[in-house]
């Protein structure tokens, strides 16, 4: 490899064809360049076979979540300069099966997501009335800052419990269940609690490592959600008067 010039970065990308062994590319740094820009630059100028996912490029869709320098982050929201390293290591999200290069299958993530019945189950399915949720209601207060999940899978990739437990729901699914439990329109409380209270996969598997909170690109305090649910499980009835 040629000598690295000033303002040139080395981007080390995990490749599935070589069983995850990284290939190193030299990329010239442009002002405000993100890791996603660097990946595009590699794909356009050096290796067209490099695979990665992206969609919105503004941190709204969560498609481009990858492991950057050992931490799950959104490639489109991570500026290369802010990493503070001359070599940037990009790997697929941990705890998920790799399809190709940086592309992982989110199948296990959504399998857990489905377990908590993510969709709203209205109390009165025939009702056409809109339910008013005042800003100072219990739901609005307790769900503040927790409604922004973009299902990027960063928390799932960072979770230390997920490393050793296939059954664990994962922080994102638990957060979703919490929002549904708070929702005054919802009627599937019993089924959700069943999944949350499950011995091997439920909230009790969380060891409060807080990796999920640390990596969430939307700043959701996921461990706080889990500890709230643990406390609620110990004093039932908290979600009854929504």
């Amino acid at each position, binding site marked *: 490899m040629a000598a690295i010039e000033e303002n040139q970065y080395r981007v080390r990308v995990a490749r599935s064809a070589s069983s995850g062994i990284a290939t190193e590319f030299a990329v010239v740094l442009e002002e405000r360049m993100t890791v996603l820009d660097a990946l595009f630059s590699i794909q356009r100028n050096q290796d067209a076979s490099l695979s990665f996912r992206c969609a919105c490029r503004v941190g709204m869709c969560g498609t481009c979540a990858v492991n950057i320098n050992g931490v799950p982050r959104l490639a489109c929201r991570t500026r290369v300069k802010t990493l503070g390293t001359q070599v940037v290591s990009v790997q697929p999200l941990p705890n998920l099966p790799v399809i190709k290069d940086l592309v992982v299958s989110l199948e296990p993530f959504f399998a857990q997501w489905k377990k908590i019945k993510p969709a709203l189950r209205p109390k009165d399915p025939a009702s056409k009335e809109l339910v008013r949720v005042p800003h100072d209601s219990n739901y609005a207060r307790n769900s503040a800052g927790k409604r922004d999940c973009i299902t990027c899978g960063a928390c799932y990739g960072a979770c230390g419990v997920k490393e050793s437990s296939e059954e664990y729901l994962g922080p994102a699914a638990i957060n979703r269940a919490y929002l549904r439990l708070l929702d005054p329109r919802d009627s599937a409380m019993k089924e959700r609690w069943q999944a949350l209270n499950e011995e091997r996969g439920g909230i009790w598997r969380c060891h*409060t*490592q807080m990796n999920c*909170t640390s990596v969430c690109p939307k700043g959701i305090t996921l461990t706080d959600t889990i500890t709230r649910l643990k406390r609620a499980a110990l004093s039932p009835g908290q979600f009854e008067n929504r």
Partner: protein
Amino acid sequence: MNVYTGKLAQILQRITGVLLLIYLLLHVHTIRELREGPAAFNAALATFRNPFFKLLEIALLGTVILHALNGVRITLIDLGIGHTRHVKLFWYGAVGFGLLLFLAGAIPMFLQGVLKV
């Protein structure tokens, strides 16, 4: 480092927990000598008076402090306190404050127990 502080804290909590369990077993084993009378108990205690065991005692102090302070941190988090400051709680609260407590106890223990000053 900050991202995986919680993981490091959990690993340390487990290691110190196991070490404290080993100490507890040794402690109960020694106390058990009381059944054999004062002479047997004194003989058992004499084993722990050499400098090697004094050093282990200092290490025990560090283990207890770290385990206890990190335990307080986990309890606070379980009560919903300090979720956004958990990294500072660990480094400043458990490690930093713990180090001060450790030095306050370990220095006199070292001087008196090991150096016999």
